[in-house]
């Protein structure tokens, strides 16, 4: 399936990636090529085949409910772009 640039713009919005107007055409074309490649999947009959999300048929282990983590705020916030009073700062969130 090919895509047009308006669809790419919508995808980029969903994925929160700024794409400049100059590159939009190239991005759209290359994305279209990739989708063409994956479209080969449409030719296979997969009726009745269970999807395989994990290569091995393992099941989840569950962890005991213990508090094992210490406060490491300083170490984490040392590498943060903008913090104040222990909070991560972002442009105002509007509900």
């Amino acid at each position: 399936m090919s895509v047009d640039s308006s669809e790419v713009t919508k995808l980029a919005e969903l994925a929160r990636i700024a794409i400049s107007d100059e590159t939009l055409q190239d991005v759209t074309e290359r994305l279209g090529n990739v989708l063409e490649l994956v479209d080969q999947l449409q030719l296979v009959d997969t009726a009745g085949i269970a999807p395989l999300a994990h290569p091995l048929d393992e099941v989840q282990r569950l962890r005991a409910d213990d508090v094992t983590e210490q406060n490491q705020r300083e170490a984490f916030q040392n590498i943060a772009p903008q913090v104040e009073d222990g909070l991560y700062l972002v442009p105002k969130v509007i509900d």
Partner: protein
Amino acid sequence: MHQLTIADMVSGLRNREFSSVELTQHFLKRIQALDPQLNSFITVTEEAALAAAQAADTRIAAGDAPALCGIPVAHKDIFCTEGVRTSCGSKMLDNFAPPYNAKVIDGFNAAGSVMLGKTNMDEFAMGSSNESSFYGPTKNPWDTNCVPGGSSGGSAAAVAALLAPGATATDTGGSIRQPASLCGITGIKPTYGRVSRWGMIAFASSLDQGGAMARTAEDAALLLNVMAGPDGRDSTCLDKPAEDFTRNLHESLRGLRIGIPKEYFSEGLDPQTEACVRAALAEYEKLGATLVEISLPHTHLAVPAYYVIAPSEASANLSRFDGVRYGHRCENPADLRDLYMRSRGEGFGEEVQRRILVGTYALSAGYYDAYYNKAQQVRRLIKNDFVEAYKNVDVIMGPTATSPAFALGAKSKDPVAMYLEDIYTISANLAGLPGMSLPCGMVDGKPVGLQIIGNYLDEARMLNIAHQFQQHTDWHTAVPGMAA
């Protein structure tokens, strides 16, 4: 000293033929001298390396040396290293020094090894040529006009050029085996779940698997010994006790049944590469193995299925890079949306952006069934092909890549051509099977790799199979001119 294998170095250190500090200094000097031509390292941790070597020498002197005590290694820059930049080849993480270690790094530290530095890679491990790195492409030591393969191209080039005797790497669709093939070294991607993914920055969680690169199968086994094992912090890590992967190295190959999938020798395979692989298979026959032609009928669907599944998982895995808690943040965001759009638009390179968009597309409303779900169904068909094949054979062999290393820039503008690079390696990731590549010939002065795909948890056997080949051939001892 750089010609020694890891196994040689272990005994050399124990017999006091040289110290870890000497060994480490030697490799650091080589990196300094030769890496400017290759760009295989993003970060060289000279000071920490020398301190670790010093500590190793003390332990060796005290007779308290763990497995890899004093052995210098390089780590792919996808493994988190406490206090040391872990960039994942991306501008997004150029300023990121994690306050924790990956499980794999803890394993090497516990084994007493010495980290030389962090190796170059395709951005977020997305690529087959190392050209998508924010830090510039790594060059192939056999021909610096060519790519080393990817995404673990930095690790492969460093090992091939003898800048490190061994290195860690990861493989999501061929990222260990393809660069190992293109650089003429031995690389192993174990069974999915053998090596903990804790602290290994995720590309596609159900496909990513850490592994090792070295010059010989024996060295790869020694590295894997300290990497593999259970880890409660990774739910997908197998609850299997650590193994000694060297335990079967010396077993005979008599009676070994090698499956040769006809789909791996079809059009698209370079004839000279094919000739090298066929010659290696003939060598195996001499060693007592039987070749059995098999079919993996869904092979042609592996690349399409992979390019739905891997980008889908990646599109979510990379959402955490948002400029809020760590990593790149754009200047003066106007509002929240702008913060996200520009931080991610600036922080991620073209290939990463493309894969996020492909994944976003495949998962979006109305397309999920046709793409994501379909690809997971095809994934089962591909796995079933292998399960069927292993009823009649012990191991599967074929080429690792379609051809030797290609020129820098040859495929970088054509993502689909680049994706087809991994046509022989991707199936093992989809099925979760262990895979290896080992050098088996040369074409125009560039190495060719033989791929071994093993059954689940059969790494020790595969390493035995590779080791026996290396006992009777010397492709793995070849050294590129620049590194001699």
